[in-house]
């Protein structure tokens, strides 16, 4: 019998969105943190971070909701199990997201308490990706126990596991690295070399740290997750490519531009995006067929076939209709010099 391909298409689609959100979310939340760091200094670095955040944070947030909705639609049983298991950590994340987003908006509109509001949103933002990524070890085994027909999170084990803290550390450093790198490029695009230099410096520091933490994380997995490590060995070549992409991106921070400026941040951003893509998809492929090890596989969690096709059609149509919107958006806020260099406040 030919194996149905639909569940694989669905998990691939979810994984693509997850990858996009992990990048966009890291940059978004990280930018909030950097905006706070440079909040009251003479450089334009903080202003540039805020200028990037103001129009984009809502769109980024929507990608998160898309991820949740896609998981529920394509893999209802996974949503069921994760919903039951992760209620406490996810609730904490939700509260942090709420405080971060609303305070960021408030900081924009209230003069006087700006520093305080910005500090609150910057610090909460720092922790969100770190906590989000802690869902990964939960799906790898060892933290969920099945007792009388339902799954329970072993909360004590989760909060005392060094492996989980390494994941969190990886989330943190990734966020700071990706945001700094992206903002370096955004500063260059804005023609602000001073801010560029500041963000470039952070990217140079956090790049290698992130890579080291990632390697370290993989080799300190919980014993229950050794199956994953074994599977990951099969994808060794992918990780070689991933590290190669990182090196290219990292070195690009020293390449000279035709104009004699130091560093090609755009090349660096693209190379690092490729680095994360390769690593993420190798990880995802190794994780298969399990969504939650060892309780739920992709095929078991899969939705009704008619629903799958309707969702897929809606997804394709929605993207096609909105694509011009995204392009206009990109040009107005990522390319237009009048916005990038402007001093506008609403």
């Amino acid at each position, binding site marked *: 019998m030919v194996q149905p391909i639909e569940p694989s298409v669905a998990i691939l689609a979810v994984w693509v969105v997850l990858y996009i959100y992990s990048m966009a979310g890291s940059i978004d939340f990280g930018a909030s943190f950097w905006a706070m760091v440079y909040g009251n200094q003479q450089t334009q670095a903080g202003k540039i971070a805020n200028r990037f955040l*103001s*129009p*984009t944070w*809502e*769109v980024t*947030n*929507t990608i*998160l*909701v898309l991820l949740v*909705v896609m998981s*529920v*639609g394509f*893999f*209802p*049983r996974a*949503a*069921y199990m*994760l*919903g*039951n298991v992760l*209620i*406490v950590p*996810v*609730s904490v994340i*939700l*509260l942090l997201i*709420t*405080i*971060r*987003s*609303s305070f*960021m*908006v*408030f900081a924009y*509109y*209230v*003069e*006087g308490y700006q520093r305080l509001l910005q500090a609150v949103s910057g610090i909460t933002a720092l922790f969100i990706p770190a906590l989000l990524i802690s869902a990964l070890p939960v799906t790898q085994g060892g933290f969920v126990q099945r007792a009388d027909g*339902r799954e329970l999170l072993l909360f004590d084990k989760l909060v005392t596991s060094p492996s989980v803290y390494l994941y969190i550390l990886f989330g943190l450093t990734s966020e700071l690295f990706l945001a700094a790198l992206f903002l370096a490029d955004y500063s260059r695009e804005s023609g602000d070399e001073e801010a560029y230099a500041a963000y470039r410096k952070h990217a140079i520091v956090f790049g290698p740290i992130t890579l080291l933490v990632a390697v370290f994380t993989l080799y300190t997995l919980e014993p229950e997750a050794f199956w994953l490590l074994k599977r990951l060995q099969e994808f060794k070549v992918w990780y070689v490519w991933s590290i190669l992409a990182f090196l290219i991106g990292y070195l690009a921070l020293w390449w000279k531009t035709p104009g004699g400026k130091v560093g090609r941040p755009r090349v660096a951003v693209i190379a690092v995006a490729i680095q994360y893509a390769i690593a993420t998809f190798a990880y995802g492929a190794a994780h298969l067929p399990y969504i939650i090890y060892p309780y739920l596989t992709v095929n078991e969690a899969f*939705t*009704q*076939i*008619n*629903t799958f096709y*309707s*969702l897929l059609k*809606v997804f394709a149509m*929605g993207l096609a*209709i*909105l694509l011009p*919107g*995204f392009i*206009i*958006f990109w040009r*107005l*806020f990522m390319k*237009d010099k009048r*916005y990038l260099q402007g001093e*506008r406040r*609403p």
Partner: protein
Amino acid sequence: MPMDTVTLARAFFGTSLAFHIIFATLGIGISAMVFLSEFLYWWKKDIHYSVMAKRWTKSVAILLGVAIPSGTIVAVQLSLLWPGFMKIVGQVISVPFQVEIFAFFLEALALSIYVYAADRLPPAFRVVSVFLVALGATASAVLITSANTWMNTPAGFTMRADGTITDVNPWKAFFNPSFFGSAYHVVVSALMTGAFVVVSVAAYRLLKDRREEEQSVHHKALLLSLVVAFIFSFLTAMSGHGSAQNLHRYSPEKLAAAEGLFETQRYAPLAVGGYVDYQKKEIRYGVEIPYMLSVLAGDRFDTEVKGLNDFPRETWPPAYTHTLFNVMVGLGMLLLVLAALGLYVYWRRKRGTRNWPEWLLRCLVAAGPLSMLAIEFGWIFSCSGRQPWTIYGIQTTAEAATKAENLGVLFVLFTLVYLFLATIVAVVMIRYFRRHPLAQDLHRLNRELGVNAHGPTH
């Protein structure tokens, strides 16, 4: 008495939703008002409309700072608090959620473009972008309503005795029998609420602000919003009638509970006020209007309306459904009368005059909050009137709820955050508009127009 997990989950989710819909409703209603005034500005070239649009947009942007994360909370909490429900939702009715994401994207993109790029766009494009904001917000509401109406009148699948689901038709689920009626009701009532909130603020400012040009702006805002509020409160009332007929057809016990009707009968009376006593099976202290319930249900005196006695006792909706229904309808009627009264008084006192009587303005200040309250009661009526079901006739709320314990702590935590945010939003709004008074905006615009060769001419 400690609450059981199901009750706690209901209270928790209800609180999140009650909080979110304030911001979601205003997101639709006020952005629609911004669109109208942008349109009027483009048409009449009266800069007062441009000033209004600018200032209302600021409040939309501040409100969205809470609307978006609170919407995210609601979206995720569906899976956290109702995993059993979402297991069926995922298989049958996930399409509207997926489409809603794109409406959400549309709104987020268009709003950012309108707020941060308006000055780099041609004027017509500005009107288009704010129209897309309102469209995106409205579409989100329609799509979420689709999922909600599917809970009330499930369609598009068959459930076997063992709980497995077959014969799924996602579009039949999407366009379930009560979808069109309810979606329409939700949209017009949101537009009504947005208008009434503007009515409230304009009336309040008219009472406070005594300067000539400010008065003129508030006057225009009040007149515009009163007209919109009147039209949409009328449409809301009419669509409410349609919704009642829908209940009659598809969820008769909900209508019976809303009206405290126990015996199935023709020529059924409409009970107003009082409370329903399930022990004695009667309405206490209510006023009965003969035949009106039959008319409401089927436009005929002899329509047979089902009573609660026809249904097993354990599937009766809670007794307070009647009260929720009464408050919702009562507020709706009151608002319609208020808007009509406002316009009537204005018309009587010579057109063009700006002298609104003070007593009227005082009444109108209350309109916005009352309208919001009516929306809240409507949603609570729709959802608690469906009890004990989450999906009518298919899944009970107890089956849908999470099995997790210790919800209490989270509930308290979230409630505190909601209260805190509500307070801060109010403070931020007040501070912002104090720091940027209308006079300042008027002054700046007048100056800009003075030097701007492309300014309006007429």
